């Protein structure tokens, strides 16, 4: 049915906290009263980016923009504007006298394509003040969960939202909660909730930033989870390297305890729950669920075989529900705004089956050879191209894009042919990488893919706990082969051997660290096999990185004698007078690349 007018009420977090949902109800009732219900439709929209003046409302097709609308304004607004067609001047936005001469934040590509759900309060609230969080609607989801919903309702809402674990595996959170609750009831043992803040991927800092900018969103999510699962005990396992995040979280817990939001009889509802912070010593493997729980218990952080899951026998053999920081931070909004709202973002259909798609948003740390490095949050299903070229602003220095590494050491490198692939759990896995916790490292044409694989395998070799043979030996020997290839001693059969070892590891390692460890090798073999062959057969490194395979020289045509490279060279390998052609002594050169960095004319050759 067609409406003559649409009223768009902003449903961004800012406007919701200043009452836009209530406005919708009042508005609809008033339309009914004045007999306009069939002519005017009220729609809640996404954020309009002008949160400072909320609640915001736009009447279309008139294009009239109202701000700061209160409930009492509505009867008059409906009569005057919608019935009589006279826009209400006093509610219309008046731009400041002096027109702001700078671009709007939401028109800047870095911000325009982001959609902030988990990071809704970034930059807006003081993370060390619980009152700030409460002012923007914090802990209202907890009230709703405790007073209007049964534990089953909460679990069903999370299930239908399609929320999948943001720590890497992508396991549906609702199913995990349900399994944990049932296991606890069946065994009559108290369950435990744990927040995994042991973010260890190189180049990843999403969870740290979430805790640093909005610790209470994680705490609130955990309390809601605890009430749904039936826990009275919770832990945050945070790595030792995150002092600021830990401090803010400690403060948040203390304030929540002071307000009675943690402890006994929370908000007078009878719920007892508290959270303890446990510091990890920074072992990468402790991000893995069973190793994390061993570490929580004070044992050596080593994984165990998982024919019995931790949701049944986890921390001290209690049923244990482990979710990561970002997953927990999503929970309050899903409870407040509903599963339908959450699953309207993202890909696939999760209404019946949480595995059916990837709903919601994902936070990424965008780093490497990209102009705008930073912390971004985007709807699931956005393309890699949009992330790297629109939000990231492309590759610095006009260089060419070569690959993007997603999912950290366990992820893989994706080439430019996959730039238009949607970013969601299943697409990334299919392409041989993974969502992981959300690190995204962009690489340009000066990157050597063999060297990248070598870097990650070296990292994993050091971090492998050594408990199972495929991981311990597979990594060690993969690294040895990659070192040989990089040193110019690769053998033609090495490529097949790397492939075979990788596949064995995928099939036989004890934990996810091991089964995903060959991904950096397998994905570079899949998409950049030519680079391996160039190293092995032609003794050439196309990225110009592997020192044994490159030589430096100065292009006598391009050099203008600016002399910038001479002081930059620490071994005095470059000589020449100002405004004369310079030369490079290969016997002195240590191939450090300092001259390339300073040469403005690209006269230093590296082949």
């Amino acid at each position, binding site marked *: 049915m067609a409406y003559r007018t649409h009223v768009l009420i902003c449903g961004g977090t800012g406007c919701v906290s200043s009452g836009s949902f209530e406005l919708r109800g009042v508005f609809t009732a008033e339309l009914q009263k004045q007999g306009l219900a069939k002519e005017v439709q009220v729609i809640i929209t996404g954020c309009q980016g002008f949160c400072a003046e909320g609640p915001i409302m736009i009447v279309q097709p008139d294009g009239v923009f109202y701000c700061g609308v209160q409930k009492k304004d509505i009867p008059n607004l409906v009569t005057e504007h919608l019935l009589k067609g006279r826009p209400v001047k006093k509610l219309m936005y008046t731009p400041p006298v002096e027109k702001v001469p700078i671009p709007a934040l939401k028109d800047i590509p870095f911000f325009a394509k982001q959609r902030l759900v988990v990071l809704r309060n970034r930059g807006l609230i003081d993370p060390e003040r619980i009152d700030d969080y409460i*002012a923007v609607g914090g802990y209202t989801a907890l009230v709703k969960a405790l007073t209007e919903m049964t534990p089953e309702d909460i679990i069903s809402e999370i299930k239908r939202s399609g929320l999948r674990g943001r720590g890497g595996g992508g396991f549906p959170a609702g199913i995990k909660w349900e399994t944990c609750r049932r296991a606890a009831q069946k065994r009559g043992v108290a369950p435990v909730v744990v927040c995994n803040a042991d973010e260890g991927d190189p180049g990843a800092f999403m969870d740290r930033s979430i805790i640093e900018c909005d610790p209470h969103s994680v705490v609130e999510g955990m309390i809601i989870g605890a009430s749904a699962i039936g826990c009275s005990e919770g832990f945050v396992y945070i790595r030792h390297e995150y002092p600021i995040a830990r401090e803010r979280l400690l403060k948040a817990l203390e304030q929540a305890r002071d307000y009675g939001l943690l402890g006994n009889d929370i908000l007078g509802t009878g719920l007892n729950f508290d959270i303890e912070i446990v510091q990890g010593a920074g072992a990468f493997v402790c991000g893995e669920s069973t190793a994390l729980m061993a570490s929580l218990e004070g044992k050596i952080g080593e994984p165990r075989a998982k024919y019995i899951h931790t949701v049944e026998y986890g921390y001290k053999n209690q049923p244990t529900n482990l979710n990561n920081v970002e997953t927990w931070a999503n929970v309050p909004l899903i409870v407040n705004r509903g599963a339908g709202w959450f699953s309207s973002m993202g890909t696939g259909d999760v209404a019946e089956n949480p595995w059916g798609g990837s709903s919601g948003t994902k936070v990424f740390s965008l780093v490497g050879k990209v102009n705008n490095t930073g912390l971004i949050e985007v709807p699931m299903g956005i393309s890699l191209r949009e992330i790297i070229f629109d939000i990231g602003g492309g590759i610095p220095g006009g260089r060419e894009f070569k690959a993007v590494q997603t999912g950290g050491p366990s992820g893989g490198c994706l080439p430019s042919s996959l730039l238009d692939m949607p970013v969601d759990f299943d697409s990334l896995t299919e392409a041989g990488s993974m969502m992981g916790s959300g690190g995204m490292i962009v690489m340009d044409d000066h990157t050597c893919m063999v060297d990248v694989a070598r870097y990650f395998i070296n990292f994993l070799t050091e971090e492998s706990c050594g408990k199972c043979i495929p991981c311990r030996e597979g990594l060690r020997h993969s690294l040895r082969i990659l070192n040989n290839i990089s040193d110019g001693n690769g053998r033609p059969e090495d490529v097949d051997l790397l492939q075979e070892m990788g596949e064995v590891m995928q099939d036989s390692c004890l934990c996810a660290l091991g089964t995903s460890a060959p991904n950096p090798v397998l994905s570079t073999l899949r998409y950049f096999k030519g680079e391996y062959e160039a190293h092995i057969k032609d003794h050439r490194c196309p990225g110009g990185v592997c020192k044994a395979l490159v030589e430096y020289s100065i292009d006598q045509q391009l050099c203008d004698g600016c002399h910038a490279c001479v002081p930059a060279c620490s071994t005095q390998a470059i000589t020449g007078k100002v405004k004369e052609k310079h030369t490079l002594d290969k016997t002195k050169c240590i191939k450090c690349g300092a001259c390339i960095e300073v040469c403005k004319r690209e006269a230093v050759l590296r082949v």
Partner: protein
Amino acid sequence: MPKLTIEDLKRISEQAKATMTLRSGTARAKVTVHMGTCGISAGAREVMAALLKEIETGGVTDVLVGTSGCAGLCSREPMATVEIRGQPPVKYVDLSPEKMGQVFRKHVMGGTILMEYALAAGSETTG
């Protein structure tokens, strides 16, 4: 602190809004320095110190100062957001203590946006 009831939560929300936002408070302007790990390592603490010094030496009483987490664009830290009542917030990037001083004097006190250091005006898209 006695335990909160659900009604208390609503009351705190209203009270805190008054001090956080300029809409209902008595302050004329608010300056937020973004202090995530990225901001602090780029010098946000020094920027904050410079801001507080400006306020102290100027005897300014109607400007709120706040801290917050990472603003997202880590490569342009330290960042600060200046909000004058009735105007969209303006984000400043690549700040130093000296630049913060200039921003405070020209924009917060003088009312003119310092274009050289400003990135953009407005809020981000949420929800």
